[in-house]
């Protein structure tokens, strides 16, 4: 019984995703599976997926990061400024990467050296970063790539989807390799599972945490860049609820928030796709707004309950 239960459990998240897709295909009479819809689902899912895949390492090694919203907004804004000043996509990409890495490194150092309840600190950090963006942007509140020094090439709907695929598939493959085919993945799982055992097995927890935060930084940079190219502008309220979306995506992807051996890279992508299909499917039904939100909450709780059926303790979880 132990073995079969183990494998079934690993596929729960995918069952959850398939159920949501099938349900909305029927409910929207196939509209959700049309070409445009698939492209739009990808466009919507891209940001959450990239950031979630990157965060798998952070949550996996037992850390916690609810400040993705603020980090993403800061990265996109500073990237946008660089884009306008230079007029070149390459410089904009570099600026995004630099900002994301600096912020993630600070969070990594903080997580590695300062002992503090990370989930409260990162929630507060999220609010602070969003407020800092407002302070930086001052009165002029939206950055438009159109008034860049040299015109930045714009991409139409289909080209944009192509860029999305390349970015998503590329980052996902790199993370799969990093997680499953190098020592990092195993170290993350062991550190998340039992920090004392990790120390006594000779794993350097500081390095693991720093690398994990750096990878999540790359995910944020990519998400910001793709958003800038697609929307060609960024406002101070961009990415506001990415913090909760990432957490919901990872949990829907079947990953425990405390990390450890049950960490899965696929949780990032499956969770992001599930929540995107859920959100866009609901708004496509054209229901009353209150019913949409109740429906979303109920489906979210149901899928999370199913996905996390596996790790029960007799003590109430904290």
């Amino acid at each position, binding site marked *: 019984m132990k073995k079969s239960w183990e494998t079934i459990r690993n596929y729960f998240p995918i069952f959850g995703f398939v159920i949501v897709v099938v349900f909305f295909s029927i409910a929207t009479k196939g509209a959700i599976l049309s070409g445009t819809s698939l492209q739009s*689902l*990808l466009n919507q899912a891209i940001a959450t997926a990239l950031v979630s895949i990157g965060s798998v390492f952070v949550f996996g090694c037992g850390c916690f990061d609810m400040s993705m919203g603020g980090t993403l907004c800061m990265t996109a804004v500073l990237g946008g400024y660089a884009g306008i000043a230079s007029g070149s996509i390459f410089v904009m990409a570099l600026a995004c990467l630099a900002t994301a890495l600096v912020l993630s490194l600070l969070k990594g150092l903080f997580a590695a050296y300062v002992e503090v309840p990370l989930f409260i600190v990162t929630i507060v950090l999220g609010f602070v970063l969003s407020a800092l963006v407002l302070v930086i942007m001052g009165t002029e509140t*939206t950055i438009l790539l159109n008034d860049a020094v040299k015109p930045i090439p714009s991409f139409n709907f289909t080209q944009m989807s192509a860029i999305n695929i390349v970015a998503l598939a590329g980052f996902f493959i790199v993370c799969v390799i990093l997680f499953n085919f190098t020592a990092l993945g195993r170290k993350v799982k062991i550190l998340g599972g039992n920090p004392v055992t990790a120390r006594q097995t000779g794993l350097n927890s500081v390095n693991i945490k720093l690398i994990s935060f750096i990878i999540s930084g790359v995910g944020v940079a990519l998400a910001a860049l793709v958003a800038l190219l697609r929307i060609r*502008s960024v406002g101070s309220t961009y990415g506001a609820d990415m913090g909760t979306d990432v957490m919901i995506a990872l949990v829907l992807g079947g990953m425990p928030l405390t990390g450890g051996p049950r960490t899965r890279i696929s949780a990032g992508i499956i969770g992001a796709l599930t929540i995107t299909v859920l959100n866009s499917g609901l708004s*496509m039904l054209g229901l009353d707004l209150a019913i949409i939100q109740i429906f979303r909450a109920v489906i979210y709780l149901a899928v999370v309950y199913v996905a996390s059926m596996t790790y029960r303790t007799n003590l109430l979880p904290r």
Partner: protein
Amino acid sequence: MKKFLALLLALVMVIGLAACGEPAGNESQAPASAPAGNSEAPESGEPVAEGPELSADGRYPAETVKIGFVNYDTTAQQFLSLQDYFDYLDDYFNFEIMYSESLDSAEAEFAFIEQCAAAGCQGIIGYYNEGREESVKLASSLGMYYWGQGQDPNVQEACGDDPYYLGSYYVGNADYEYGKSVIDSLVAADCHKIIVVTGGKDFGVQMFIDRYQGMMDAIQEAQDGGYDIEVVYEVPGWPGTEDFTAEQTSALATDADGLASALSALMWIQPISAAGKMNSIKIAAVDTPTADMVDLMASGLFVGVAAEIPDVFGLGVPMIINAVQGYGEEQRNEDGTAPLIDCGFWLITTAEEMEYYSEIEQEGGTWCFDADDVRSILYDYNPELTLDDMSALYSAVTMEEIQARR
């Protein structure tokens, strides 16, 4: 193995892109060609027995027109009145509105527009526009008409000649006008020391920035005209945070005699009464007329309410229906660019006006532009319709003009 399954899943989803080639949205409507459509002139007024073909339940047009509505705050009073207006129009016209949730960023707006395309919407009403011309370009590339956000010059300049962009209502720079008229009503009520409530100006919300700018210019004009007026306090933000309460109290501690609010000022009534200044401060705000406000106007507390008329945003429905029915050509300026229809707004200064306007702007009310008015700007009902007729109709918003039309 499971990792590859997840990757495979993502790729399969995207193969849908290659399989269907050009986005499916735009084969069905060719905007340019005019349909055969019979042309005899239906009398105005009563819906005529023959005239354009109606749907099974007697509503025009025959097939339902699906329209997406981009919204920023589902709880705003104006949005609630607009929903009632669309429910009223729904009895006469065969259209269906897909409302968005509260969107707060361009990215969320893009996602909703794409969802509308997938759900088969034929047009978008841009009640909220963070993405500016990029949102219009996106809707157009997905084969959907886009209407709204006229006051943004670069939207007009960038997409003016895109057949999918149907132009917009035009109240000059609406928010700027509202800000100016709020100050004008305070000047008219002989106020000298003004508290300015800036709402989302410091939070990067464009509409609050325009309203604030309108207020400042109006104050400057009044000062140039020799009228003694000054801003004694600026209060940013919304209730709920500690600093808002602190700012609100110190504002009311000043000897101000006027309050100019860029958003609904209902949240100031209780603090003003708590500070015992109910009869020493006059309020002018940008808000939507409701029954509650009638006695506030009567009591003299409210001296001016600059109100965006919800029906003005309803203009998007007939214009999109016209385009869907093939009248895209007629509905454009001579140079082929998208038209800006001049619209009025209400500056309510008397309780009687407030009472009238709040009565018509509610469920079961007769609205500013009723079904006949809307029918009069549909080409199928009124073939010789010109853009000037539209502007004339949507500018005639005063109480007398509405009563004249009934």
